[in-house]
């Protein structure tokens, strides 16, 4: 962790105040003002973004109010706009993604933090960080040409024949839909879960593990029953982080989800997500209400990811405080 910032007073070698002019001449005051302006511009930009989103979505907010979130109909001709199918699609694909990514991610993180010697763990983590750098459109490319055919020909029929009694796995197997989007998203968010969880697990104080082992637990028991619960908050934080990423994904999702505003219990059904509908319909939204409705969807997405990111950071904060605090007896 970085050392805390020590504010060296901008006086020169002589403690106490110098005259304003001499500070000015030295460039310190100008430097402070100029860099402050740059830093302030960041705050300004973020404020402006929120304000823009809020203001441009005024029309639909006044017209539909809260029912915007409960209406299923998205009909640009009749000017009826409801956000429910998109919220549903966004949440369902994210849920599928987490169901796949969390066990895999935590498992991998446990391996990297607890079992692998550093010589193995560091290079593996390096590769996983690279996985996080792969752009969304490349995942989309793979999704269209690799994942969809596999889902359509092998995975979905297999699920149908074995678990077809569940409403989750009914309906024709298009290959495209909620399940495929969830699978692609899972691959995209695993690196986040792994890297954050690994860091959190590594920061768990050694005496916790050693105490468990000293009491006779097996390696796995000490990991699963002592270390992981100790790092529980941080791991939750990583899951929230992953969730925030999954919610905001655009390209990979729009290429495999089917782009149809449907609400269906079946994971095989095509659907739509907030980010995907904005990407598809933004440039053609004629009429202020249509455009405003899309921007309101953007506002919803923004708020969701904002809250999740905030929670994630809160959890990370709690974990580091706990981890670096003295071990309570």
């Amino acid at each position: 962790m970085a050392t805390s910032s020590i504010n060296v007073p901008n006086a020169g070698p002589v403690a106490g105040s110098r005259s304003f002019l001499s500070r000015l001449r030295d460039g310190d005051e100008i430097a402070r003002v100029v860099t402050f302006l740059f830093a302030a511009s960041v705050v300004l930009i973020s404020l402006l973004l929120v304000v823009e989103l809020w203001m441009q979505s005024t029309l639909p907010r006044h017209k539909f109010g809260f029912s915007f979130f409960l209406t299923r109909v998205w009909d640009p001709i009749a000017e009826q706009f409801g956000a429910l199918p998109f919220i549903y699609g966004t949440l369902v694909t994210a849920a599928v993604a987490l169901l796949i990514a969390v066990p895999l991610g935590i498992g991998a993180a446990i391996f990297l933090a607890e079992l692998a010697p550093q010589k193995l763990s560091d290079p593996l983590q390096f590769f996983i960080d690279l996985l996080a750098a792969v752009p969304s459109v490349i995942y989309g490319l793979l999704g269209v040409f690799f994942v969809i055919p596999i889902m359509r020909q092998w995975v979905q029929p297999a699920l149908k024949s074995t678990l077809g009694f569940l409403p989750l796995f009914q309906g024709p197997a298009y290959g495209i839909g909620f399940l495929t989007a969830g699978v692609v998203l899972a691959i995209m968010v695993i690196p986040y879960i792994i890297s954050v969880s690994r860091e959190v697990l590594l920061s768990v104080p050694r005496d916790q593990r050693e105490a468990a082992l000293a009491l006779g637990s097996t390696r796995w028991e000490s990991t699963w029953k002592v270390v992981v619960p100790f790092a529980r908050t941080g791991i939750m934080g990583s899951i929230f982080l992953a969730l925030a990423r999954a919610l905001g994904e655009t390209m990979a999702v729009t290429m495999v989800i089917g782009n149809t505003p449907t609400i269906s219990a079946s994971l095989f059904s095509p659907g739509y997500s907030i980010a995907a509908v904005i990407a598809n319909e933004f440039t053609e939204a004629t009429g202020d209400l249509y455009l405003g409705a899309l921007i309101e969807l953007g506002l919803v997405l923004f708020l969701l990811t904002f809250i999740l990111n905030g929670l994630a950071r809160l959890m990370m904060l709690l974990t580091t405080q706990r981890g670096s605090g003295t071990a309570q007896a």
Partner: protein
Amino acid sequence: MTARLRWRKLVSGFMLTMTGVCALVAVSVLFFILGYLVYNGGTSINWDFFTKLPTPVGEAGGGMANAIVGSAKLLLLASLFGVPIGFFGGIYLAEFSGQKVAFVVRYAADLLNGVPSIVIGIFAYALAVLPFKHFSTLAGAFALGLMMIPITLRNTEEFLLGVPRNLREGSMALGAGKWTTIVRVVVPAAYRGIMTAILLALARVAGETAPLLFTAFGNRFWSPGLNQPTASLPVVIYNYAISPYDDWHRQAWAAGLVLLGLILMVNIIARVILSRGVAVPRS
């Protein structure tokens, strides 16, 4: 050994192996993606790909020269916009600011970092396209630059804070003012870390598609100057991938390989520089 102990040991061995499998799966995905791209796109990378413009729809041949140059232009402009804000803002946070201001700025940067890229696209459209009434490279660069700011800012701050106190104090003791200290001592000491931060920020936005959809738009020709729509690699990959033309699919794979190759290379270089440690000038 009791039976129960044997069972517990078995479970332990099994679960730990499973975690190994998880890690293996996660890592192999990366190699699988690379391999798949090489297999499908490797053969399509030829001289034409880098030098020719796209041909009319349905006709085979042509290349992505304009998309490659367009992406390069976008990234260059985005850095010119995003890096100074992040860099100087980071300097402010590390060297000048008080606790409260620092909190607000960091909060704003984290907020900006978490915004989904499609929403950044909406914002950039409202600010950089509508008022000027055209799509442009500048608008696209604005959107990408916005995304570079938080990464640059947070990392600059972190690496500057990581420079040991005594370096600063030594410089001050020799009579240098604050700004001189920053410019001549602190920043050069944190130079490597900041460079890698910029490289990582670049690699992150190089692959972004969504914000370009309604800012840089697209162009079948060269984009003159900075005020016209421009083709870019990620958008062309997207358009070609969802099309029915096999020739376009080929080109999409090739472009994907080039794009991913460049991004991974930049990431690797950045991380290698970082792992060698932040350079501290020897006294």
